[in-house]
């Protein structure tokens, strides 16, 4: 315990730290900004040069500049659509500004947060951070093991000073002062005629915990991030999603993903209900509740679960989130003999708040020609003055589909994966629908006879679908733990004052006195009040009262 204070704390602190713990530890030392002082004349040897670079990199000034740079470098990430959060926006941008797109692409503006320049800044920041905290931790460790600092050579510079009669003699008064300091959680060293005491080590400890925990966040992301995966899937009422690669509509594996990570389970959508209310202001319909009832089969057990927005479903090692929904009209296509060649719910994607939706039906086989249908779905169809249809309510009060129907080569055999929501209309021949004078407009149960004796189509019934995201994120635990320490360290550090107190015996044998001196690290407007209170506690009640007046 009697280990001495570190003699040269300077090299362990950022060179331009104001009120640094090293200044605090040697208050008599002259203060100067070591960063600005030339280290060894104009010509630096290679070793000095490396040392100089390191000092600059781990200086506070560099930390500030890098923090501000990170902030500014993030701005493009909010101005330009990002591949990670808005892939569709990137495509729209490309189509609208092909030339600007090339330029932006070349400087990675669509991937701001994984770009070379952004990564360079935050990696430098974290190198600086590590370079800063390692020596500070070593230094603080030694301080923690050492005794409270020796009294300064000159008491004149101390911001707090107070002298009181030592009623009952110096020894007794010092005993009392020691007890008071200890009960105020000071670390105390008592000598015959003096006391030195120190408080608030938690400030630096908390600060270091905070910075180390920041490294913890980054390290967690770097180490575990690659094992994550996520995928999207549309599930229609009655359908079952099984957790395997082939079941996803789209899938985003982390760099170290392997297929064995997908734990087997199945989720069947039993029913989906949505509730809407009419917004008083602009008459628009607003959703107020989405509820999906699903059954989850995992191992031998099956359970019924409600999946809602904000209430994800945990299955296997992944979570399923309800992100979207819409209508899936069931369409049945028959050949001229009445044989069913197509009978499926078809997902229609909603386009507005009243769920006017568009979808595509492709019937490659079974008829004399390949059939493609571009559909519009209106949950509550009403006629507009223009003769067109519109939906005035997201709920299915008058569900109606209209189709533009085409024949020709759907291009499904060309080997290129076709977008299920797109029809290559340029290369097809329209046979009915808009502008042909032969509109196709169906409500449930309606049958439409295709021209030329091709067959018939029926809007058989209506179902709903949900869009879900299934995700395994192994970073959550580590990030959560790190953030806990970030917050704990921050609160501990900002809530603690580092203070020192020295007491020495003064006066004469007949009128013994104790002199108190105190200082804080950094500004501390409550230093006087706090130390006054400690002093009062060592005085007899009468004396304290007189003082208080």
């Amino acid at each position, binding site marked *: 315990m009697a280990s001495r204070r570190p003699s040269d704390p300077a090299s362990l602190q950022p060179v*331009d*730290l*104001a*009120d640094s713990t090293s200044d605090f530890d040697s208050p008599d030392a002259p203060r100067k*900004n070591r960063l600005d002082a030339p280290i060894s004349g104009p010509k630096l040897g290679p070793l000095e040069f490396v040392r100089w670079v390191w000092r600059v990199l781990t200086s*506070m*000034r560099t*930390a*500030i500049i890098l*923090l*501000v740079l*990170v*902030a*500014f470098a*993030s*701005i493009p*990430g*909010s101005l330009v659509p*990002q591949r*990670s*959060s*808005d892939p569709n*926006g990137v495509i729209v941008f490309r189509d609208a500004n092909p030339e600007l797109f090339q330029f932006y692409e070349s400087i990675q503006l669509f991937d*701001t*947060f994984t770009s070379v320049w952004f990564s360079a800044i935050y990696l430098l920041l974290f190198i600086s951070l590590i370079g800063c905290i390692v020596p500070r931790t070593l230094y603080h460790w030694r301080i923690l093991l050492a005794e409270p600092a020796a009294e300064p050579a000159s008491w004149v510079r101390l911001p707090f000073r107070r002298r009181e009669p030592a009623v009952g003699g110096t020894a007794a008064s010092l005993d009392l002062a020691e007890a008071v300091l200890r009960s105020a959680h000071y670390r105390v060293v008592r000598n015959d005629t003096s006391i030195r005491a120190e408080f608030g080590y938690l400030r630096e400890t908390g600060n270091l915990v905070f910075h180390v925990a920041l490294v913890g966040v980054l390290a967690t992301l770097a180490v575990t991030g690659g094992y994550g995966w*996520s995928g999207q899937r549309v599930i229609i009422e009655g359908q079952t999603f099984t957790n395997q690669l082939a079941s996803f509509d789209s899938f985003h594996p982390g760099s170290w993903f392997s297929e064995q990570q997908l734990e087997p389970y199945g989720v069947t959508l039993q029913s989906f209900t949505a509730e809407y*209310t009419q*917004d*008083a*202001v602009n008459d628009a319909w*607003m*959703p*107020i*509740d*989405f509820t999906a009832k699903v059954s989850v089969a995992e191992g031998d057990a099956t359970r019924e679960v409600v999946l*809602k*927005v*904000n*209430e*994800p479903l945990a299955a296997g090692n992944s*979570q399923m*989130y309800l*992100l979207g929904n819409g209508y899936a009209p069931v369409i049945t296509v028959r050949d001229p003999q009445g044989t069913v060649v197509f009978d499926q719910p078809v997902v229609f994607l909603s386009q507005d708040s009243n769920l006017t939706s568009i979808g595509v039906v492709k019937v490659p086989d079974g008829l004399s020609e390949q059939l493609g249908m571009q559909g519009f779905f209106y949950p509550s169809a009403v006629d507009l003055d223009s003769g067109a249809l519109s939906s005035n309510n997201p709920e299915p009060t008058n569900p109606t589909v209209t189709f533009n129907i085409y024949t020709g080569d759907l291009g499904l055999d060309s080997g290129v994966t076709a977008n299920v929501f797109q029809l290559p209309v340029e290369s097809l021949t329209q046979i009915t629908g808009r502008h042909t004078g032969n509109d196709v407009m169906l409500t449930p149960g309606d049958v439409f006879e295709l021209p030329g004796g091709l067959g018939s189509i029926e809007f058989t019934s209506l179902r709903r679908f949900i869009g879900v*995201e299934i*995700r395994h*994120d192994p970073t*959550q635990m580590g*990030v959560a733990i790190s*953030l806990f320490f*970030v*917050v704990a360290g*921050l*609160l501990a550090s*900002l809530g603690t004052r580092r203070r020192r107190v020295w007491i020495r015996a003064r006066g004469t044998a007949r009128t013994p006195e104790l002199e108190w001196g105190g200082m804080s690290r*950094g*500004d501390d*407007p409550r230093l006087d009040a706090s130390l006054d209170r400690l002093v009062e506690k060592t005085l007899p009640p009468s004396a304290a009262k007189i003082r208080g007046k």
Partner: protein
Amino acid sequence: MTNTLESISLIATYSAMAVYTLAFILFTVDLAGRAASDGQSPPTRWLRSGMAVLLLGFAIHFGAVITRGISAHRVPWANMYEFGLTATLVLVGVFLGINIWRDVRFVGAFVSGFAILALGIVAVNFYVAVSPLPPALQSYWLVIHVCVAVLGTGFFATGAALSASQLFQQSREEGKLQTRSWRFLAAFPSSETLEALAYRIIVIGFVFWTFTVIAGGIWAERAWGRYWGWDTKEVWSFIIWTLFAGYIHARATRGWRGRPAAILSLVGFGAVLFNYGIVNVFFKGLHAYSGL
């Protein structure tokens, strides 16, 4: 019933603005008077009545927020109008609260002026009638996340007022800004005191902002399946956080105290305003249910 409460809330909002205007006038008269005597005179009755009127405005404003919440059957901070209404209340509340701890009445004119401006902009441009919450907002994380965001904003705003005063005061101490119209600065504390005050208040704002970002992450995980996805609003919350981390460092760095630190604090608050006023209105993203 709901509709009457809703209109009472709006009327109270405008009344609060009127009362704040009176407080602003009183604070300004006080500053002018004290500046004339080179700041040596003690706080006047103008200042005391300014504080009393501000407190009255705060009470009315509080009523506006409460009635809005009751008429909506939920916390009154689910769209831009409500957020602005509540954040301004918290700003005035933070200012009043700080005065219990430390006398910062000299920025009363600044705070009341800002409150009038903010309430005016919010009530005129962002007003929307009470409407129910979309499913993504139906979460107690809304209560927590936005509550700490509002608190953080209140502290950052007060901090910005102090940092701005600090900059002017420092210029004055250096012999600039000596004309009559700047005489009111004589009634302000020294730039060093202003800086220390600003720092302590901004640090509290920083803690609240840290909670805001973390609570937002937890909520985003529940609602969207990921705790962080660099959505526009997330980007700006991050920018604000790093800028104020920079400010905190600047305060502890030789050569960065004083003016550079104060400028960083103002840049940080600029980002807060930008995040609220510009990002919500003009940028698209997952947070785009600001209710406009």
